[in-house]
Structures are given as structure tokens and as C-alpha cells.
């Protein structure tokens, strides 16, 4: 597909718009003579990477672990919970309304509590990422598992197919597009969760670094941190997208 001239044109345009934004940013700062502490130029932003005190590699690693850790846990437990719900209807009827209520809690508001209970660090921040992206995965997966065409159910019943056959051959593969739909939403939320966790209490990570340089008004480093956080999110989203392309037939993919 990449070799296709039309696809190539689309990629070229997408890259051009990104480069255009950076160029506009550069021109705005240069021509507007904006002070560096208000808005650094793209050059200043990249230059911030050279400050060894900021310990970029370590902070990047910490934030990445928090995001990916919380996210992977949410995927495992989210899909697991949804599977249990589809196997045990009474469990779904008891727990699902509870989950919906709990989902109403602004997860950010739990931050101070998490710190009281678990202190601060990688674990609690991953937990924040988990808390914020667990629900969309459970809800969409459970919905996908419920959506079985009644006629297909009849087809399996006329063949005296087992519950397990129905699950492995129809229910689970049919739910996959929904699983990925939830996972894509959750990927974006996981990043926000981990950073909020770092803002509330941490001693390492890109969010922590942003709070540190806020005091010294090193806006360029803050810009760099935001860009890096975004890139971690892009990588996570890209992995999920690639998995979806591998596992879900084009026609079945949900937006």
C-alpha cells in the first residue's frame, strides 16, 4: 500500500502539515520576538535535551514504564473482567452497574488518596494510568462480547455447538474490533493518567521534571517534556494500531 502513488501523496501531505506547524512556530517566535521563557523556539526546545541535570533518559524511561505498565494491566484486567461478565451473567448484573458508578468518579480526584495509601513513585502513577483507562476497555469489550447476531446463535444451536465453540469461533473474534476500539481510547487516557500521577506526587519522570523546571522558568525544557510525553503516547497508539491491523480484518474495524 505504501508504494501506491495516492497513498504516498497522503503521507507526504501529512508530513508537510506537521513540518508546516513547526515552521509557523519558528516564525512566530522569531518575528514576534517572543521572550524565551514565554515560548522557546524549536531550536531552543531541542537544545534543552543537552542539559545533563534534567536526566532525560531516566525520566523518559520512568514515564514510559508508568504509561505502558498501567496500560497493559488495564488491558489484561479489562478484557479479563469483560470475559467473566460474558460467562457469568449474574456477575455482570452485580458488578457492571457498580463499575459504571465508579467510573463516574473523576480518577484525578483519587490522586491524593493513592499517595496516602501507596506513597508516590512508579507504582502509584502506573495505578493512576490503570484507573483511568480500565473502564473504557471493560465497557467496550463487554459490549462486543454481547453483540452476537441472533441468527448466528441459531446456526450454532442447530449444529448443537457448545458454549465454548460459540465463544471461540464467533463471540471472541467478533468482539475483537470492540476490544481495539476501547484500547485505542485507553491508550490516550493512559498517558494523561500517568502524567497527572506525576504532577500529584513523584520524584522522577517527565511530569516531575516539568514541575521542577517550572520553578526556574525553563520553558524550553517544559516544551521538550510535553513533546516527549506526546511521542510516548504516539508510540503506544502506534503499537495498538499495528496490532489491530494484524488481528482485525479491514472491514470489521471500528473507528
Amino acid at each position, binding site marked *: 500500500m505504501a508504494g501506491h502513488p495516492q497513498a504516498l501523496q497522503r503521507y507526504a501531505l501529512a508530513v508537510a502539515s506537521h513540518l508546516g506547524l513547526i515552521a509557523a512556530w519558528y516564525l512566530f517566535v522569531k518575528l514576534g520576538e517572543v521572550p524565551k521563557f514565554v515560548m522557546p523556539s524549536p531550536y531552543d526546545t531541542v537544545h534543552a535535551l543537552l542539559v545533563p541535570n534534567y536526566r532525560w533518559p531516566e525520566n523518559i524511561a520512568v514515564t514510559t514504564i508508568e504509561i505502558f505498565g498501567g496500560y497493559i494491566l488495564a488491558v489484561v484486567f479489562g478484557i479479563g473482567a469483560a470475559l467473566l461478565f460474558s460467562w457469568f451473567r449474574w456477575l455482570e448484573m452485580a458488578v457492571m452497574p457498580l463499575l459504571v458508578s465508579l467510573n463516574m468518579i473523576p480518577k484525578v480526584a483519587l490522586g491524593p488518596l493513592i499517595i496516602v495509601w501507596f506513597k508516590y513513585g512508579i507504582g502509584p502513577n502506573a495505578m493512576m494510568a490503570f484507573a483511568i483507562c480500565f473502564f473504557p476497555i471493560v465497557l467496550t469489550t463487554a459490549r462486543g462480547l454481547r453483540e452476537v*447476531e441472533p*441468527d*448466528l446463535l*441459531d*446456526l*450454532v*444451536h*442447530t*449444529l*448443537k*455447538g457448545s458454549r465454548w*465453540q460459540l465463544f471461540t*469461533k*464467533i463471540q471472541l*473474534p*467478533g468482539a*475483537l474490533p470492540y476490544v481495539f476500539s476501547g484500547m485505542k481510547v485507553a491508550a490516550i487516557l493512559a498517558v494523561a493518567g500517568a502524567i497527572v500521577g506525576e504532577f500529584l506526587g513523584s520524584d522522577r519522570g517527565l511530569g516531575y521534571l516539568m514541575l521542577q523546571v517550572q520553578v526556574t522558568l525553563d520553558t524550553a525544557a517544559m516544551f521538550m517534556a510535553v513533546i516527549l510525553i506526546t511521542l510516548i503516547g504516539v508510540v503506544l497508539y502506534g503499537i495498538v494500531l499495528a496490532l489491530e491491523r494484524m488481528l*482485525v*480484518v*479491514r*472491514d*470489521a474495524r471500528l473507528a
Partner: protein
Amino acid sequence: MGEPFIHLAAVQKVYRTRGTDFLAISEATFDVEAGELVSLVGPSGCGKTTLLKILAGLHPVDSGEIKIGSRTQPFDPSRDIGMVFQQPLLLKWRRVIDNVLLPAEILGLPMAASRARARDLLALVGLKGKEDQYPYELSGGMQQRAAIARALIHDPKLILMDEPFGALDALTREKMNLELLRIWEEAKKTIVFVTHGITEAVFLGTRVIVLTAGPARMADNFRVELPHPRTLEMKTNEAFGEYTRRIYRLLGME
């Protein structure tokens, strides 16, 4: 004639919803010989789909007798039913051939032999060369052909079709009618075909059973004495017109 393949006597089905009883079928009585293609025709809500589901063993009956199979044609309810619905209901994530193989997998049939059979069946329904495509790459008519192949894969004795061409455009539908007759003649199956198309019912059926709605009951059951193979020209025959008029009259449309 001997022993019929399907025997229904005074079959009654009542749906109970929130305290009120709804009579879905009152007194369905008919026999079907092995190898017949029986059209069940009637307006929507006349209970024809319910009747089909009773034959499929999906719904119990409230009273009456139902017997499928004979001494010469023993019937195993888990292996001898093939279903085709109004929608093809192919699994989007499976290639066409793997969709056809679904019943074989569920029944645990030997896969190598089934795969060869699936190829033959896809050729029979006119989908040679489409084996490895995905359903979204096929037109609606082709998807329904694949669904017919899926209904045949486990070599069932009885094919139940619930308005299988109802979602297709008129021209594709006529073409599929001819195709179905060809497949029926080659595969030598007993087919019960539910439709609300009166012309379709007469054109396809060796026998037509007419159901009327409100209250749902069997209004007529007659043989269609038109020669096989059937051709589209027959639809303009006087005899063909007689049959369709007979049904229109029963449904109060003449």
C-alpha cells in the same frame, strides 16, 4: 409416495409475553416428501419464520406432532439441518472458504475432506476462485451463495431457508432463484423455503404452503405441477398465473 420425510400434525405454537398469549401458529398440518422444495409463503407476521425455527428444533411446539426423517432417510437433528438466513451472516474475519467450513468445524468433521468438499461446493454455487477472499470483497448475491455453500458443507438432508433472497435487488434475486433450483437439482436436498414473494414461491416450489396472518393459520397446500428445469419464461404461462392468483386470492389481494 411412502413415508413422508417431514410430518407435521396440528402443530400449535403460542408465545407468551407479559401475560398475554400470542398465537404464532395454529394447526399447521402438512407432509413433505424427501427431495421436495417446499415454499412457505405468507405476509409478515404469519408465523412462517416460527414454523421454520420449529423445524430447526430451535423452538418447542405447544401441541401437535412433528416428525422429521423416515426409515429410508434417517434424520439426525444435529447434523442434518442446514440454515440460510435473510442476511448472509458470514463471519467478517474469515475467508470465504473458512466461512463455509464453520459447520464442519463445529461438528468436528475431518478437516482435509471438508476443505475439499468446501471447494467443490463453492464451485457449485458459482464462487470458484473466491475461496480466499474476505466477505467484504464479495457482492451481496455472492455472499448469499457462500452462505448456501455453508449450509451444504456437512451434507445435511434438510435445508431451511428464511427469505434468503429478500435483501437482494430484484434482478439478482431472479438470478439466485435459478441458481437455487440448479443447486437443489444437483445436491438433491429437501428444502423448506420461506418467502413473502408469491412469484418466487411458485417459481421455486414443488409444493406451496400458504399461511395467513391474524390469526396465523395454514390456508392452502398444493403441488406446483410445472416441469423441471424451470425457466423464467414459465412465469408468463397461464398455469403459472393460475397458481399465483390462487395465492393472491387467499391473501385477500384480489
